[in-house]
Each structure stands twice: as structure tokens, then as C-alpha cells.
């Protein structure tokens, strides 16, 4: 994201682009585990939506339809609070690529 210089910034330290944090993909922090949605077990209680700190539960036309992995950090609150006997959300292992940054 290009940062504006002092001559370009709005006077008064204003940020007029409400909600532009969506370009910050918190899903890149996720390491090791991610939630998996099993639709057949879902009773649409919306607890996962409620307890997701990173707004990563996808709701489409009034239904929970899975996760937005761009934002999911893999905390596991959704799977923990999923109330069904056969869980509709399980945490699974995830291979992560470690990108080594070049030494300066």
C-alpha cells in the first residue's frame, strides 16, 4: 500500500477511506492450523460468526457458508464454540510455507 506524503495527506490527520483495513490480510499470520467447515453438520446457530475476532466467517444470504481464509488467524474459537455433537467446524493442520527474506 502506497503511503501518502505529507503534502498529499488530508489536513487534520483525517483518514477518509473508511474501512480500508480490509486490504490488510490477517490470514497471513495463520500458522499450523485452520478451521474447516462441514456444512452437513451445521445448524446455522451463528456462534462461529459471533465469536470470530477477525471477521473471517462468511455469511451469504443469511447462511454461514464457510471461512474467508484471507482473514482467519486460526485461533480456534469457532471450533471450540461450535455447539453441535458432530462438530461443523474442526481445526485441521495446515502446511505453511516459510518464506525466507533475503538478508540485507
Amino acid at each position, binding site marked *: 500500500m502506497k503511503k501518502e506524503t505529507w503534502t498529499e495527506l488530508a489536513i487534520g490527520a483525517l483518514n477518509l477511506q473508511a474501512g480500508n483495513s480490509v486490504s490488510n490480510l*490477517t490470514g497471513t499470520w495463520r500458522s499450523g492450523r485452520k478451521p474447516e467447515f462441514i456444512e452437513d453438520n451445521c445448524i446455522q446457530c451463528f456462534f462461529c460468526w459471533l465469536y470470530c475476532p*477477525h471477521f473471517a466467517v462468511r455469511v451469504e444470504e*443469511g447462511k454461514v457458508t464457510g471461512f474467508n481464509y484471507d482473514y482467519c488467524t486460526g485461533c480456534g474459537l469457532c471450533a471450540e464454540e461450535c455447539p453441535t455433537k458432530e462438530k461443523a467446524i474442526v481445526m485441521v493442520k495446515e502446511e505453511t510455507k516459510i518464506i525466507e527474506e533475503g538478508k540485507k
Partner: protein
Amino acid sequence: MAKLKDLAQMEDRLVAGHGMCLGCGIPLIFKIILRATEDPLIIANATGCLEVCTTIFPRTAWNVSWIHSAFENAASTIAGVEAMYKALKNKGKIPADKKIKFLGVGGDGGTYDIGLQALSGAVERGHEFVYVCYDNNVYANTGGQRSSATPLGASATTAPSGSKSPGKIQGRKDLAQIMVAHKIPYVAQASPHRWQDLYNKAKKAFEAVGPAFLNVLCLCPTEWKYDESKGIKLAQLAADTCVWPLYEVENGRYKINYKPKQKKPVLEWLESQGRFRHLFKEENAWIIEKIQQDVDRDWEWLTRLAEISSRP
């Protein structure tokens, strides 16, 4: 009664891409509170986790008008905004039927400690605004220093546990009671695990005529040191042990919103978090005993107040 399904389809006033920790309790609280009013909203946010993490330059996670004020004066800022709104309404520059809601927000550091004077002044002047304190018991944003909301025995970086110290040796300040003493129309204590209760309280706060104050327990896996997926279970435990009673005070009348069927020993709460781990050493047994006594005393006091309030 509100349904989660309906709330989920409302527009997000706080959006994704904020930088809060894994399993953080703050977004859970504000997800509900920001949906408790449909009126336009102006927020003044004291320095703290929520402020820092949602507005990392050049981004913002807020979809509503939002002002960052310094650590100490979120309440003064929002009071000023509210006063200006009234003045503009009197001059006819804002239509008489246009409603705007005002919200001041701070963590326990910005509310219990640094912002207390500004908050006290703003509510004393009777500005019509809601103040929400998300209380995670510690200055989490700056590395876990003790605040006056840190409970007895908890280890914090400026009250560390070790051979010479059992963690913090003072108890918590009871902020909700301080706010009740201001004789404002609405004061409540809530927790994210009972979302319906939190939603109702936020709604009442926004509809109150005069200042309203909400103190909400905020989960903090980073500083409390627990498995971040267990947060909601912990909030439940806080209510079941009466460490964090859920109650409201409407025009001076107390009402307890959740009474555990069987009050759990405070030991279960202490066992669940790393910040209390050192208390299980032999020499610190007195602290656990003292914590239990304090919790019992406060709960007894609260139930009596509720009992008196229920009389005609």
C-alpha cells in the same frame, strides 16, 4: 428479541483487517455493541489495544466516524462532540429529528486509571453518551503492565511474580460502583459469552436519557496466558465463580442478570490462566484464600443490593 442471524446480516461498523491478537476478546464485544443501535454513531477512542490495532496508518478498520483521542480524554472528546451536536441542533443546522449516538471507548488503562477524571467529569455534566470500558485487567497494548483493574495475585510486568513478589499485591478497583456513585441513569457489567445480555445492555445504554456506562470483561490470551481457543469458556467461568458478576444498575436499582446455579470456587478461575500460576506455590496459599474471601464479600454485597432494589 434479537437473533444472531439478523445481526450477522447488518453492516459491519468495525471491519476485517484489524491487527488484534489471535483469540482477542475486543472484536467480539464491539461486534455486538455496535449493532445495538441503528442510528449514526460517532466514536471517541482512547489510546489502547482497540485504537492501536484498528488504525494502523494508513488504514482504518472503522466504518463509522471515529476520533482517536489521547489516553486520558476519550470521555472529554465525546462530550465535546455531543455538546456541539446539541448546539448545532439548537441553531437548526442539524435537523431536529436527526438522531446521532455518541460512544466513548477505552480499555481498563484508559478508563480505570488514566481516563477516570475525564470520564467522571463528562458523566457529571450529564452529556448524553455511552462509555464502554473493555476490561482485560492489564495494559496489554504496551506489554502487560499492571493497571488498577489487575486483580490481586496476577503477575504483570510491573508487578511480576518471583521470589520477592507474589504478583500484584493490591486488589481491583471497582469501577462500576464508582460510576453508580455518579447517579447516572444506566450502569452495567457484561461479558461476551452472554451476547444477548450484552446486546440488551448496550441497547439500554444507547437509549438511556443521560450518560450510560458499560464495563465489559475482555478476554486477553496474550496477557492472561491461556489457550486462545478457550476464551469463551473462560468468560463463562468468570461469571460462574462470581469473579465477574453480570449486573445492571438502572436509575440506582440493582439487578443481577446471571446467578450461577452453583457458585464455583475461585480456584478454577485461577487455575485456568498462566498469570496466576505462581499462586499455587505453598507460600502463596494465603492469596488464593484472600481472593476467595474478596469475591464472596463482593458477591454477598451485590446480592444484598439487588435484594434491597427489588423492594417497592
